[in-house]
């Protein structure tokens, strides 16, 4: 008796959705069906994220990918789909070669995935055999999904993007103060009745050098990448708007011929 089969059922549901969608994108020929299959696949991936405990990443996947990118792609499909172009069929030889290479790629990936024994086992069995670092024994059932108090990841992710690594600070504190680990555990696991109140022991913990290290480590967040990505997205916004704006006819020359249009318009923008 080791836990629930519910996560397993859900996993296989979402995994089959994701894989079927991916295969559909590959095999379907009409571009709209491909967009629909992509939608199914990405939604399945979002479900997989939820099962893995990454709720915020799953929501971002739903919002950005399924609600944004796929809609954008469908928009592009509608703008560019004129009629069925018969000359677009990929020759059978290319299909065969491509599928063979793809099968080899998949085989290599699967072999490398299955070659690592710890990846194929849930953790209580391995830690019973003596895992190297002997993890924190908090979960007692086989299915780790059943942690009732599995906290949401929004808060820690937000702090990490602001440059404060709360999770790593906890790990540091509990690992670097082995003598005081029980007290540290008590400090960190029990929130005070009012969590905003200062705890009496916090004055001395700051003066502790190991705590200073933890503090430094706790700040190794992702503020700079976050800022870079923000700037990057602004650039993308401007660039995409610039690229996709309506073509302005040149004042001097007549509308260029199709062959020349790539060059002249490439220079113009």
């Amino acid at each position, binding site marked *: 008796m080791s836990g629930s089969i519910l996560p397993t059922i859900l996993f296989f549901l979402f995994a089959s959705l994701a*894989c079927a969608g991916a295969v559909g*994108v590959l095999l379907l020929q009409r571009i709209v069906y491909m967009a629909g299959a992509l939608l199914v696949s990405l939604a399945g991936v979002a479900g997989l994220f939820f099962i893995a405990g*990454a709720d915020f990443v799953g929501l971002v996947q739903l919002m950005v990918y399924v609600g944004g990118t796929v809609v954008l792609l469908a928009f592009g499909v509608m703008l560019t789909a004129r009629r069925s172009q018969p000359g677009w069929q990929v020759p059978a030889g290319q299909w065969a070669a491509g599928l063979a290479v793809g099968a080899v790629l*998949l085989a290599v990936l699967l072999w490398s995935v299955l070659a690592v024994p710890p990846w194929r086992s849930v953790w209580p069995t391995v*830690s019973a055999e003596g895992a190297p670092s002997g993890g924190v024994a908090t979960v007692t059932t086989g299915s780790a*999904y059943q942690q009732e108090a599995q906290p949401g990841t929004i808060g820690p992710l937000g702090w990490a993007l602001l440059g404060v690594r709360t999770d790593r600070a906890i790990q540091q504190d509990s690992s670097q103060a082995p003598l005081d680990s029980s007290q540290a555990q008590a400090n960190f696991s029990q929130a005070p009745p009012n969590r905003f109140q200062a705890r009496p022991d916090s004055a001395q913990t700051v003066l502790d050098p190991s705590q200073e290290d933890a503090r430094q480590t706790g700040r190794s967040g992702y503020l700079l990448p976050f800022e870079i990505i923000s700037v990057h997205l602004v650039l993308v916004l401007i660039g995409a708007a610039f690229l996709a704006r309506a073509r302005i006819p040149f004042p001097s020359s007549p509308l260029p011929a199709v062959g020349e249009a790539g060059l002249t*318009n490439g220079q113009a923008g």
Partner: protein
Amino acid sequence: MLHPVTLAHYLVVGAVLFSCGVLCMVLKRNALGVLMGVELALNGANINWVALSSPALRADPAWSLGLDGQLMALFVIVLAAGEAAVALAIALNYYRLYLSVDVDQASQLKG
């Protein structure tokens, strides 16, 4: 009863998605189809990030990437959205010039 879900399950799904994505990039002639292949491949990578970051799936929770993996997945999603926007803009520009989004016809810069 069913075998509980392990890390390998997730990685297998990621491998399938990645392979399909790569094949899509190779085999499709429609520029938007190629773009969909890119998205699929990125999602396969993202599954790996999230699976490796989930403590519940690791043999030892201390080995999991923790929030780092989730943050990388977030960055991948956001950058992929930006990439899709720019690629779509390029595809639409190309369509405006050639009335087609066949990538095999885009050979003007071939020397």
